[in-house]
């Protein structure tokens, strides 16, 4: 089964094409806000590389975040419109799950962290078992210091915020903190596709009309942040 997976939630975009468990083609783009211009051309490039067309794709996976809100909207709108037009199944995959997938063979506590607003990070805890990604908490937005205060066991950190807060994490957790390398810190299109494949095989896919990003944060207007920042400049 040919699945196309895409993630545009961070500064590095990714497109992966798998055929069952086989990786057919993969592409990364450092797009910095140029996802709208480049995503569909990049998808076209991956398909051409694989000598396939969009009609050969049997299912779609898309990283729904958390992450850059604009990036998520471009990725989600593009992918659900592909699925909607072609009447093919689509799965929204949490970007945190896709990052945890990069270390699925490690049975230590895994904590992917993605940079959010101000000093917040988007995160969840994982305890992978037998190369299967197993999430043990909900997805949430939390202050980095509050998150670190919860951790006492050896933990693997990865994700773009793990790189950003590396020295803070090391100073708080000392030897308990283990860092994955940069390459493992970003989601891969093939991982998104693989996670989608598992769900599609179980007929556990999303509705292409109603699929939406996982923001984890309300718009500032709804939380009153705008008002607060104006009162306390």
């Amino acid at each position, binding site marked *: 089964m040919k699945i196309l997976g895409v993630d545009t939630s961070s500064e590095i975009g990714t497109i992966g094409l798998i055929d069952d468990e086989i990786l057919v083609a993969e592409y990364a783009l450092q797009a910095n806000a140029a996802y*709208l211009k480049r995503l569909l051309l990049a998808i*076209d490039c991956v398909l051409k590389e694989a000598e396939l067309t969009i009609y050969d794709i049997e299912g779609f996976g898309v990283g729904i975040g958390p992450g850059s*809100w604009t990036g998520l909207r471009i990725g989600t709108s*593009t992918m659900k419109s592909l699925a909607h*037009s072609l009447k093919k199944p689509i799965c929204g995959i949490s970007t945190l799950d896709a990052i945890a997938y990069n270390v699925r063979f490690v049975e230590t506590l895994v904590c992917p962290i993605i940079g959010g607003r101000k000093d917040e990070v988007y995160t969840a805890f994982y305890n992978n078992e037998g190369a299967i990604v197993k999430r043990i908490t909900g997805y949430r937005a939390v202050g980095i210091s509050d998150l670190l205060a919860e951790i006492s066991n050896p933990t693997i950190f990865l994700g773009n915020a793990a790189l950003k807060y590396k020295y803070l994490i090391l100073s708080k957790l000392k030897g308990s903190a283990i860092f994955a390398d940069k390459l493992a810190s970003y989601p891969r299109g093939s991982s998104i596709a693989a996670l989608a494949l598992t769900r599609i095989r179980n007929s556990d896919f999303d509705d292409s009309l109603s699929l939406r990003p996982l923001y984890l944060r309300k718009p500032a207007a709804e939380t009153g942040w705008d008002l607060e920042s104006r009162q306390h400049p």
Partner: protein
Amino acid sequence: MLILGIETSCDDTCAAVVADGKTILSNIISSQIDAHQKFGGVVPEIASRKHVELINYVIQEALDSAHISFEHLDAIAVTCNHGLVGSLVVGVAAAKAIAYCWNLPLIGVHHIEGHVYANIVENPDIETPHICLTVSGGHTMLIYVQDHCKYELLGSTLDDAAGEAFDKIARFLGLGFPGGPIIDRLSQDGDPKAFAFPRPIIRRKDLDFSFSGLKTAVIYTVNDMRRRGTRLNLADIAASFQQAVVDVLVYKTIEAAKKKEVRTVTLAGGVAANSQLRSTFRACGVHEGLRIIYPSRSLCTDNAAMIAGLAFYKYRLGQLSKLDLDVMASAPLGA
């Protein structure tokens, strides 16, 4: 030729199917007003999120109402210029994906040009050149429409858009959002001559507009009355304010028609639904010997039928977009 139009430049999620630039087979508008009302204006982040949630439903409904499916389409049109960037990207991403899947021509469209074409969709016989006054909560422009897809911007607002002035005055008076229809309704019971509010820069020779001074004059007058404990007749204030806006819009538009020696004037945009603006233009049209045209109310506010309508003419002129189509918050007309 069947074109699917998509429009997400502000807070309405819209899709429409139009045949040959003139026959509207469907025109679906999903308004987000309820989501923005409590904030007294459009919140960009909320608008962007709603567009993602609604866009594919609205597209499907546009196809269903037109009794067609994707394979019947001949082209995809989408608003890519002029609006909230976070909102525009949603429509453009969807349009590109559909165009790619069905190997259809993609036509990126300027939102304001779309408003100009709301009139042409309903009146395909409209003569060019003509003058179009396009006026909404986001813009106020006087456009010389030389020929299809060929424009000259004659004047625009130096500060607030006319519709924005309506919104701000309605909010100041505690009347709610959006201000245009509320003030229009309230003015029916008011005396437009009760207050002599200024007609800003009406005597200036250029064709630009300014509404912030008028807004300030209304606020000062009301604050002064409140301080002195004078009873406020909201209907009179609304009617007088509305008349001041209308007078400036009408005067400058007629000046533009004279300057360019055209016989046809069209109105477009949300404020073109204002009943006082319509009736004053009608009266002036008779007096000046001008043909005055304005769209049905459903084509005044943001909609995708006008986008699909314009795209038909752009397609005929070979003005197609590529899959790397990007969005811009503002762009010159005819770009």
